């Protein structure tokens, strides 16, 4: 088998060049590809278009790339929690394309499933619909939205194997599997990399055919955005 295993984040993102379009998995800070983001920051690649549900926080996640002005355009459903982001947006340094979260997910799915466009009711009658084709099916209006076309999808999984198969843990799954399917080149960082054959074929979330490069990441911080707890002993 062609070796999909790379040494680490630096090698994995080595050919990401200025102006590339990247998908980055995660919801908030949950399930984000920490190692690859750090490597992209270190590499200093610029003018990126980033497709990601959120934009990180000031000092973590995509926020680190924003701070370095590496991002030309964000395509997200929910941004904020990020002062530098706001500054760049208001000053016109950063383009932002805000789209409904389900539209974001389904445009990834469409790319992964080879469907050039999909129909969704989300955004009909709002500014999101401006300039878009509207079509009525069964008495209800839908927007036609196009599949994403990303150079790289960068995702974070819990476990992966040398064949590129991925398993996600809990709600850190979120956008990761749909983005993994959608990149021309898909890079997966995993908490634990095992030999092909160690994962049960029935429980693989992303089949290896969608994954081009894989490595075992390190030093995961897994920062929690909103630590909410209840008192013990209730």
């Amino acid at each position, binding site marked *: 088998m062609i070796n999909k295993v790379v040494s680490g984040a630096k090698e994995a993102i080595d050919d990401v060049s200025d102006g590339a379009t990247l998908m980055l998995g995660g*919801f908030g800070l949950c399930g984000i590809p920490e190692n690859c983001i750090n490597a992209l920051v270190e590499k200093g690649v610029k003018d990126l278009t980033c497709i990601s*549900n959120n934009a990180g926080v000031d000092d973590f996640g995509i926020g680190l790339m924003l701070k370095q002005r590496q991002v030309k355009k964000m395509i997200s459903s929910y941004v904020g929690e990020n002062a530098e982001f*706001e500054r760049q947006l208001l000053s016109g340094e950063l383009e932002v394309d805000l789209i409904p979260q389900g539209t974001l*997910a389904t445009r990834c799915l469409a790319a992964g499933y080879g469907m050039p466009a999909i129909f969704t009711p989300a955004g009909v009658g*709002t500014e999101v619909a401006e300039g878009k084709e509207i079509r009525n099916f069964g008495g209800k209006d839908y927007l036609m939205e196009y599949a994403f076309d990303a150079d790289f999808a960068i995702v974070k999984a819990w476990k992966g194997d040398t064949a590129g198969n991925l398993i996600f843990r809990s*709600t850190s799954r979120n*956008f990761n599997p749909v983005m993994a399917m959608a990149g021309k080149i898909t890079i997966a960082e995993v908490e634990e990399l095992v030999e092909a054959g160690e994962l049960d074929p029935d429980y693989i979330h992303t089949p290896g055919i969608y994954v081009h490069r894989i490595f075992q990441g390190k030093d995961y911080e897994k920062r929690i955005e909103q630590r909410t*707890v209840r008192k013990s002993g209730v």
Partner: protein
Amino acid sequence: MFTKEEIAQRIAQEIKDGYYVNLGIGIPTLVANYIPKGINVVLQSENGLLGMGPFPFEGEEDADLINAGKQTITTLPGSSIFDSAMSFGMMRAQKVDLTILGAMEVSENGDIANWKIPGKMVKGMGGAMDLVASAKNIIVAMQHVNKAGESKLLSKCTLPLTGVKCIKKIVTELAVLDILPEGGFKLLERAPGVSVDFIKQSTAGRLIAEGDIPEMRLD
């Protein structure tokens, strides 16, 4: 007048046994605390979870397990995890029975605005546009008037819309109202001690108050 907690409590009465429910951020989140005993409800979190449980005990937080508000949560027996495409797929296919969300404005024809104030920093619509466009049953939990004393129940929304003709029921600190298919806020219940006249004054859109309007009950 009702407190936020009481609005949540009143909305909880609308939930039926076996419902799958999506709760938005703010007052809607509080609804989970008032689900009647004996009623089993499965909460959907749009980031990919069915069966959202309470916050974890201190020290048991799991960074990989959060809700749509990015809060640490827990799962419950019968929970399932899925990706974002399936999460919004099940909404779009109207498998979620009830969606409860907040609003900045609602119009008498059921339009809702809750994501953007021009001139202010825009954080994005998140899943709100998908929810309002897809849900078969949406209840809006909101304040009847804003801090400036202006009605948020309008003939026409002034803010950028989140969705059109999608809201059917509203619960505020003053009243429970249905939005009629032909348009108009139909007053169903008054908060205790609040007069129909006061609700009329607080509603900029067309209010329909026919016959005796009972007070809301919270038991």
